């Protein structure tokens, strides 16, 4: 299978061209833009109802995923996330793990396993109790709201602090603490809230915009409900 990501960082789309019949891509429901008519699409609860429910409730992902199966070489499939932003592809090898912020998952090949990971009480404060953990072997595509900015911790940086609303994904060599920046006054008044302080060895991806800022911007423009 060949894959190409076009229109990063603004309105990214993923195009997959299958080389052989039987090749598969699993995608978040609603992610398909277009496909060759002959590609088979099957909707399912990936890895059973229990795992799907857990992903839905805890990982912010949809209950259903679609599996696209090629029936002939050269067929293509187009996928995109809901909001404007970027797509990143990563090739997972056995023993490698990638952690995704809830909602960042877009698609993967069948060798990739997804699971939710309990973040403990610190996850509760970091909004979104669970991260999605991806492991196995295969391709994984994830998306961001805004552009994706990667930093290599342990190489060009000794550590990195990221605002938790801007965190997208990180590789397994990294550990983090959720902390507030500055003093108590900063927590309530700085507008920065909580941050994740990463260290270790690995790559961290952050997004240059965050949906909650957009929501706060739009909120005052909503009509006010009449009191009657």
């Amino acid at each position, binding site marked *: 299978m060949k894959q190409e990501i076009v229109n990063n960082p603004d309105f990214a789309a993923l195009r997959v061209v299958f080389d052989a019949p039987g090749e598969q891509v699993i995608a978040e429901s609603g992610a398909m833009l277009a496909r060759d008519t002959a590609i088979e699409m099957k909707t399912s609860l990936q890895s059973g109802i229990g795992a799907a429910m857990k992903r839905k409730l805890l990982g912010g992902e949809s209950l259903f995923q679609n599996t696209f199966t090629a029936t002939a070489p050269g067929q293509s499939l187009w996928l995109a996330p809901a909001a404007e932003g970027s797509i990143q592809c990563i090739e997972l090898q056995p023993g490698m793990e990638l952690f995704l912020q809830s909602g960042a998952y877009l698609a993967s090949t069948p060798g990739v396993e997804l699971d939710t990971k309990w973040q403990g009480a610190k996850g509760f404060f970091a909004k979104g109790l669970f991260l999605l953990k991806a492991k196995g072997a295969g391709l994984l595509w994830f998306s961001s709201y*805004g*552009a994706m900015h990667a930093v290599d911790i342990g190489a060009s940086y000794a550590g990195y602090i990221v605002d938790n609303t801007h965190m997208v994904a990180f590789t397994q060599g990294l550990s983090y603490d959720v902390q507030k920046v*500055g003093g108590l006054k*900063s927590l309530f008044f700085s507008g*920065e809230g909580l941050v994740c302080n990463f260290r270790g060895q690995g790559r961290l991806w952050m997004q240059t*915009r965050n949906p909650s800022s*957009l929501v706060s911007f739009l909120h005052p423009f909503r009509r006010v409900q009449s009191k009657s």
Partner: protein
Amino acid sequence: MQINLLYQPSQALAQCWLQPGESVLAESGAMVGMTPNVQMQTQSGGMLKGLKRMFGGESFFRNTFLAEGGGGEVLFAPALCGDMAVLDCGARQWNIQNSAYVASTMGVDVHTKAGGMRGFFSGAGLFMLESAGQGQIVIGAYGALEAIQVNGDLVIDTGHIAAWESTLTYSVGKSGSGWIASWLSGEGLVCHFQGQGIVYLQSRNTAEYGGAIGPMLPPRKN
């Protein structure tokens, strides 16, 4: 401070490198990420100054980011999708539409200017910002940014102004020949700029965006 703008124009991010002991001041909520040796402090700069800023459409508090024990890096971005620009202050000084301010170096004094009635009608809120001193200001726009050199005259819709050079004089007026025509044109109020200098236009208007989307959202309780 060295500033590198990435992912322009739609999803711009300002990557700022601080010397050891150097700080940068930023709008609250603008920080995306930073190296762990950067210390953030929140300051309102006094109650009155803070309140004045709040009227300016900015948040009450600004944050200082200080690099300790070595050089540091901070990433800043505005809330909405759009471009960013770095304005040099010194030989030139700037007026900035309040919501366009993202960050500034410590040598620049960015203060709220009471625009009076003129400021109010300009759609720039009752207050806008003006710069003094030496250094750099990072601005962020909603939409793309276009730097236009004004020679003589230019009319700009008030909602599309991000920043302008203080050598320019301006007056706020109606767009059409009469008030009714002006209102019907949907252009409302415009700024007439005069003189020589640069104006930064933003290609989208936050008020129109909010006005288009807001009514489609479920009503809020308060």
